[in-house]
């Protein structure tokens, strides 16, 4: 495979290769590397609006984690992110796994169901959020209208206005939006399992549950690793659905507040109280970033080890 006249052209070729790689690298350095590095630095400064003030050390971090006004809001929101993560792991990823298993057998209507489950995934989160906000309207939304017409008036609720149900409603809207993604990733994972393995298990008289638990689930472990890591990152960056459906303040009474909303309110202010604090915002973003990087790496390593064990 040796190219005979590589030497005489090497200078010209080196220039050509540089022409190919330098623009993408400069672009990435300017718009990704530089902002991310500055994000860490900004957290150590005091900010007056858009102007950087003096170096204040860890003051912003202390305020975010332990300050009297900020910390309770941050921890309240953090708990909601954890809650959303756990619920979505079960409903969205777990549901996706089961749907994938049903689709894997290519039942009647397989192609239709496969396309249908992915329809909400291609829609903008803004459309999904507004749609469910209208559907969950206490008086005229189709959810309560359906309950009334079934005679189940007692179950009708102001879903988004009640702090007991609001976060759950957001989680279900998110699951409706994205369940097609884990479904099709798991389906692709299952389709890579050599069919002889499943045939052999079937001949041995393995029950459906044993087959799923002992053979399919371990063999789709690489898909699980990716899906759980993506969900983890997504759950702690959760912003659009809450923003559209319950507003910037995580109403009612902060019962749907999540870190994404806290970050946006802190850094870019909100309509009611136009305060803007880039220092606290950067500190919160840095902490969230470190949290995501550390836990996502640990999660990935743990899930990878699990893959090998099977």
């Amino acid at each position, binding site marked *: *495979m040796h*190219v005979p006249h590589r030497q005489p052209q090497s200078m010209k*070729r080196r220039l*050509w*290769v540089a022409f*190919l*790689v330098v*623009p*993408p*690298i400069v*672009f*990435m350095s300017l*718009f*990704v*590397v530089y*902002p*991310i590095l*500055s*994000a860490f630095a900004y957290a150590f400064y005091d900010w007056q609006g*858009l102007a950087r003030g003096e170096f204040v050390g860890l003051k912003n971090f202390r305020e975010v984690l332990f300050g009297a006004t900020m910390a309770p809001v941050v921890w309240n929101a953090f708990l909601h992110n954890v809650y959303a993560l756990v619920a979505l792991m079960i409903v969205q990823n777990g549901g996706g796994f*089961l*749907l994938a298993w*049903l689709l894997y*057998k290519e*039942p009647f*209507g397989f192609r*239709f169901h496969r*396309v*249908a*489950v*992915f*329809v*909400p*995934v*291609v*829609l*903008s989160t*803004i*459309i999904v959020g*507004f*749609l*469910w906000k*209208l*559907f969950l309207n206490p008086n*005229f939304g*189709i959810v309560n209208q359906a309950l009334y017409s079934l005679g189940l008036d007692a179950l009708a609720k102001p879903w988004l206005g009640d702090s007991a149900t609001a976060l759950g409603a957001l989680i279900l809207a998110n699951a*409706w939006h994205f369940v097609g993604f884990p479904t099709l*990733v798991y389906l*692709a994972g299952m389709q890579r399992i050599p069919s002889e393995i499943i045939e052999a298990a079937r001949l041995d008289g393995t029950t*459906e549950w044993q087959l799923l638990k002992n053979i399919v689930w371990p063999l789709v472990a*690489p898909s699980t690793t990716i*899906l759980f890591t993506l969900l983890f*990152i997504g759950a702690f*960056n959760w912003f*659009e659905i809450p923003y*559209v459906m319950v507003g910037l303040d995580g109403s009612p009474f902060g019962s749907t507040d999540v870190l994404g909303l806290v970050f946006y309110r802190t*850094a870019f202010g909100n309509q009611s109280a136009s305060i803007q604090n880039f220092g606290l915002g*950067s500190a919160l*973003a840095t902490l969230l970033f470190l949290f995501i*990087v550390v836990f996502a790496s640990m999660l990935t390593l743990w899930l990878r080890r699990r893959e090998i064990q099977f």
Partner: protein
Amino acid sequence: MTAIASDTSAARRPISFAFLAQVILIANSFIMLYPVVVMVLSAFKTTGEIFEHPFALPDFTQVQNFAKVLGETAMPTYFINSLLVTGMSVLLILVLGTMAGYAVARYESRTNTFILLFFLAGLMLPLKLAVIPLFILLRDLGLLDSRWSLIVTYTAIGLPSAVFIMAGFLRTLPSELEDAARIDGASEPRIMWSVMLPLARPPMAIAAIQNAVPIWNDFFFPLVFIQTDSRKTLPQGLTSFMGEYTTDWGMLFAGLTIAAAPITLLYIALSRQFIQGMTAGAVK
């Protein structure tokens, strides 16, 4: 359902399982599609009709909501902005991604590992969390509140995955192709443009779809960067629109339907490519 409960003999179990699976799949597809159907049906109704008969079929000749959305609101402007931003971003991602991917895949160099690691880091880091410095950088560059602010941001987010998709594919092309062209005296740019890239259309399509859908749908960056109404993209413009017509549900559903229509129709026409492209990052 009673068949499942009463008949537990091993021979009949596959049939009842298949039946249960069908029930679940049909119920799931119904849950996935029915909200979209209600959205479209409601767009043909007046607000009064939506409130009184939410599940009834509308009179499909009543298109005044659509006419009003397209004729009296800024929705067409938002749509054009989304097209411009998505188109330019995807174009830049493909050009820059192919350049870097080609260099890494087709030329041996000691810096290749470094370049790949560099882009791998970009793949992992959520740029959303660096939005404050990005905001200040774009302000200093005079790009804030312009469509370019979105284009450069989306390009930066999409570029790493495009580099990996392109490099992964280009590496698999046999080197006899370029060797033959070299012996014929073709220049390196000529080889890349006329010999190799025509073969690389499938990975380009995957990279394009993988990036186009999230860019088209993104809301966060326009929310932070764009203030001027005439430069807003569709998802962002939709929030202004929804705020303006809060009580006119017919208009709201028509707006949502118009916003959802292009990508949904494109998805139905190209579902295989969409699914392949959008799951490309998670499926090896």
